C-alpha cells in the first residue's frame, strides 16, 4: 500500500490522503477494508479474499466486487502488485 497515507474515517466513507502523489481519495467501505488489510502486510489476492470473507463463503459476485475494488485502488496508486514468488 502507498506508504504514509493519512486516513479520515466517516460513517460511510474513508478519505485517504496520499502524500507521495498529493492526491485525496474518497473510498467506500470495501476499498477501505482492503486498504486496512494491506496496511502493514502484502497479501495475495486469494489471502485477501479469505481474510475479508471471514467465516462466510463468498459467491462469485462478492469476489468480483473485491477484485474490482482492488483494481480501482491500484489505478489510484494506493496499492501496487508485486510479483509472487512463483512468478
Amino acid at each position, binding site marked *: 500500500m502507498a506508504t504514509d497515507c*493519512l486516513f*479520515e474515517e466517516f*460513517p*460511510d466513507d474513508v*478519505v485517504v490522503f496520499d*502524500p507521495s502523489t*498529493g492526491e*485525496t481519495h*474518497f473510498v467506500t467501505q470495501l476499498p477501505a477494508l482492503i486498504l486496512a488489510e494491506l496496511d502493514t502486510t502484502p497479501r495475495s489476492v486469494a489471502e485477501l479474499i479469505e481474510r475479508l470473507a471471514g467465516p462466510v463463503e463468498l459467491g462469485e459476485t462478492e469476489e468480483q466486487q473485491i477484485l474490482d475494488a482492488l483494481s480501482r485502488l491500484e489505478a489510484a496508486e494506493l496499492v501496487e502488485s508485486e510479483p509472487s514468488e512463483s512468478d
Partner: protein
Amino acid sequence: MPNQRLILDAGPFRVGVRSSDAAFLDTLSYFYRDSVCGDGPHVLDYDIEILRPRSLRRWVRAQVQFEIDGIRPFDPHPAENAFPMYEWGLNWCIATSAHRYMMLHAGTIAFGDLAMILPGTPGSGKSTLSAALSLRGARLLSDEFGLLRPDSMDLVAMPRGIPLKNASIDAIIEFDGAAQLGPTYPKTRKGKVRHLRPDRASLAQQCRPAVPHWLVFPKYRAGEQESLKPLDKAEAFRQLAFNCFNYKLLGAGAFRAVAQVVRQVDCYTFTFSNLDRAVAQLKALTHVPSGQQADRK
C-alpha cells in the same frame, strides 16, 4: 494630480496604495477610512500602485493598470473601473501568496466569536448572503476568503467591500434600502458591479478571529423555497476541499485542517431564493444548541 499614498489594514495584511486618480482614492477612502493607518514607517505586505499607462491610453479611452512590486500581472482596465480592479487585484495578491493560511473560497460571518463558513463557487450566492447577514448584525469576516490558521484553527477577519454583481445589487437594495453602497460600475468583466461598504463594527473588530462552528454550502435557486439540510461529513469534506484555493499546495496540512473543520462543525446545504427568509433561517440556526441538527424547510 500628484501620486498620493494610503496605508490600509485589510485584516492581517498591511497594504500600501498609491495613485494619482482622485476618483479612485475618494472611493477607497469611502470604503476604508476606518482602516487607514497614520503616518510613520510601515512594513507592507503588499505595495500597490494604480496608475495610468504612459501611452495614448492615458487620455484616450483612458485605462488604468494594477502594479504590485513593480509587476503588472493583469491587462489594463478602463479608468472608471479602478476601484473594482484594485479589489480584485488585491484578492489575487492574497490568493497567490498568503499560504500561511488555508484559504477557502467562502463567505465567513461571525456571530460573536463563532463563525459560519459559506463556501461556494461564483453564482452560489455566498457574497450576497454574507452581505445580507452583515446588514442584519452579523460580523463580516470576509465575503470571499475564509482565512484559516492551521495551527490555531481559527478564522481571521478581513472585512472588505462586498462586490455585488448584476441582480444581487437590486436584491440587497430591496433587502435593506439603507445599505451603504459605493459607485456602480456597469461594464466590468463580471458585468455590473457595486460594492457594499463594510460596516464599522466589523472593521473595528478585524483583529478579532472567530472559531468555525457552522459550515453551510449555499445555493441560490430562483423561486425555490428555502431548505436547510444536514450534510454528510464525508461529502462536506469533499466540497470544502474543492473550495479551498490552496488545498493541493498545503498538502497533508490542508487535509488535516479540512478534516478537523468538518468534524468540529455542523454541516449543511442551504438552498435559498429570498434574502429575508434566508437570513432568518440562518440566524435561527445559530440559536439551536450545538449537535441538534435540524432539517428545516
